[in-house]
């Protein structure tokens, strides 16, 4: 990831813009301080005392994912691939989010585990738990580093500070509110961030569309530019997947992205699941990802469309520059697709809106990093420290330890920020991480939740084989044994990891002894009484508009409509 670091990208911010930015930071730190008064136990700190309403956790669910990688990465993909990028939202997120709310949340919330790895511990025992906790923790530190690096890059552009100083200052701000207020501070800030991001990107999109002659004008310009007409149609998305054959591309999208990658990410990633676990009731927990799916359906319009607009209207990215970048060469202007959003903001927004746009970008980067930190500190404290290293201390000890871990993780993220800077395409990098950690995890979870015969040994052996498979595919494609441009390698790696995990788990299960049924109640579908899987429908959970299944149905229909409109 390289952001164009010369004066071309320097945004012309004035005092008003800085004042608007300062307002935002004051509120962010204020929320951290206010949330601190509410933290008296470790559960308050790590899971907000399971007390938040569904609309708050639902927006946080989305905002936690609306970090730097999403906003910069998806607008970069929008500039590079066009409309097919929306697959990451419509097929690559919504179905999995609905599945999480409808099918999996009853187990996560109902079993009262405090983290996703803790579910692993109860279902499969220690080896699987350790593999999950350690791989998750490592991934979070790496991703926090990417978010931090992007945050620092924007501060660098804006203020001209050296990158190391920007990294440390931004890390200090995120650390302050997450260490003070724990998950509540992170979640409340995520909700605020969501609205600031929308306030920043929606006007940008509108101005951009005006500039290129409306939707018709955009479609026209993109179709006639490098990349051609394929960039204004969702399917089959060959450029995105890197598969030449239409059938392979569609299959890759549906099974690779839509099934393995997306279900792996959204249903087992504790960053997301933690937000739902902070909800105040089973019904609210189930609605969390479902409510989140509604903004998720519409986010492509304010992220991908600005990217596409940048690709046809920003001097440094259009024409021969886009052509060179699509051919994987350096653009004559020196810009990359990752600069798309910043260049568009520079070109279009006057002072005032500019300040809000910068606040929105910084908000998005902080949201991502705070989400990484707040899930990392929970897993590290509960699943590694409390379970294996320092057991049986009083709750206050773990609360204090959690704050310390947050600080430690921030220092590590500063280190990985510099690693992240050496990768050319953020999304490729991240997709690789997902295929490493999430696809096999999903295979193990889904099998473990629905097949009571699956044994503890199968749990960790399957998981390790899956991860090894993903790494093997990654190494083979990196070393040139296979060549798949675009995101194809990640789809193949994730798919292979999923299949290997399932096959190995089934094989090992038949060779080893299963856990007794009594230990699996609440963890496996067939052994959980129906009433434990259901939520109450009285009081604050009453009403058809709070029915998870109905809301999920509406979201699904909306998604299908989007696919038809943009097919």
């Amino acid at each position, binding site marked *: 990831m390289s952001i164009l670091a010369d004066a071309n990208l320097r945004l012309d911010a004035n005092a008003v813009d800085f*004042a608007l930015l300062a307002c935002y930071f004051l509120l962010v730190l204020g929320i951290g301080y206010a949330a601190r008064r509410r933290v008296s136990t470790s559960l308050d700190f790590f899971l907000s005392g399971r007390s938040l309403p569904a609309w708050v956790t639902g927006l946080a669910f989305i905002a936690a994912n609306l970090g730097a990688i999403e906003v910069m990465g998806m607008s970069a993909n929008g500039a590079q691939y066009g409309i097919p990028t929306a697959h990451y939202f419509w097929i690559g997120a919504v179905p999995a989010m609905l599945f999480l709310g409808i099918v999996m949340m009853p187990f996560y919330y109902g079993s009262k585990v405090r983290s996703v790895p803790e579910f692993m511990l109860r279902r499969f025992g220690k080896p699987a738990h350790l593999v999950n906790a350690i791989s998750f923790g490592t991934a979070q530190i790496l991703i926090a580093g990417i978010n931090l690096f992007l945050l620092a890059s924007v501060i660098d552009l804006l203020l001209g500070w050296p990158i190391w100083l920007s990294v440390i200052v931004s890390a200090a701000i995120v650390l302050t509110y997450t260490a003070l207020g724990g998950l509540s501070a992170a979640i409340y800030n995520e909700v605020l961030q969501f609205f600031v991001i929308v306030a920043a990107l929606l006007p940008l999109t509108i101005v951009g569309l005006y500039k290129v002659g409306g939707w018709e004008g955009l479609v026209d310009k993109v179709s006639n530019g490098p990349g051609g007409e394929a960039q204004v149609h969702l399917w089959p998305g060959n450029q995105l997947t890197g598969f030449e054959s239409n059938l392979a591309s569609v299959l890759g999208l549906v099974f690779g992205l839509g099934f393995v990658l997306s279900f792996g990410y959204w249903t087992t990633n504790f960053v997301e699941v933690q937000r739902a676990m902070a909800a105040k009731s089973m019904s609210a927990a189930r609605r969390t990802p479902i409510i989140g799916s509604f903004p998720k359906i519409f986010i492509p319009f304010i992220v991908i469309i600005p990217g596409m607009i940048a690709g046809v209207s920003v001097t440094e990215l259009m024409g021969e520059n886009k052509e060179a970048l699509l051919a994987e060469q350096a653009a004559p202007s020196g810009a990359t697709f990752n600069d798309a959003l910043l260049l568009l903001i520079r070109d279009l927004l006057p002072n005032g809106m500019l300040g809000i746009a910068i606040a929105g970008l910084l908000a998005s980067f902080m949201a991502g990093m705070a989400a990484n930190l707040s899930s990392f500190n929970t897993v590290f404290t509960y699943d590694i420290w409390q379970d294996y290293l320092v057991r049986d201390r009083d709750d206050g000890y773990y609360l204090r330890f959690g704050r310390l871990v947050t600080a430690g993780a921030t220092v590590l993220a500063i280190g990985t920020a510099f690693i992240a800077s050496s990768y050319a395409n953020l999304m490729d990098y991240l997709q690789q991480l997902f295929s490493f950690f999430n696809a096999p995890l999903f295979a193990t979870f889904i099998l473990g939740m629905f097949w009571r015969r699956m044994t503890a040994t199968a749990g960790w052996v399957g998981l390790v084989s899956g991860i090894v498979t993903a790494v093997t595919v990654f190494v083979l494609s990196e070393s040139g044994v296979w060549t798949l441009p675009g995101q194809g390698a990640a789809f193949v790696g994730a798919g292979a990891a999923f299949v290997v995990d399932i096959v190995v788990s089934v094989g090992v299960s038949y060779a080893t002894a299963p856990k007794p049924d009594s230990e699996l109640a609440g963890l496996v579908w067939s052994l959980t009484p129906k009433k434990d899987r259901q939520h109450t429908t009285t009081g604050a959970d009453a009403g058809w508009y709070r029915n998870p299944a109905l809301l999920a149905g509406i979201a699904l229909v909306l998604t299908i409509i989007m696919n038809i409109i943009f097919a």
Partner: protein
Amino acid sequence: MALRLRVFDIRLIIALLIGVYGLVITIMGLWFTSDADLEKSAGININLWAGLGMLVASAAFLVWTWLRPLAGPDESATDDDEESAEASAG
């Protein structure tokens, strides 16, 4: 639990921030927009329009908070889910 202080209502914080933003850029749009600014943003006075939009959004959050205040400290925010569909769909 019962004695725990209710932190604040996040809806008010959102209304405050979006309201201040809306006010500032509406003023920018009304009195501090040069022809060069207008030309930059494709001929629309984006500060003015976005500012008005934000003021409306801020007012909507205030009305929501006023219509359905948080319940007591025990049961914070039990009652605000139906609007979420609209709020989040935006």
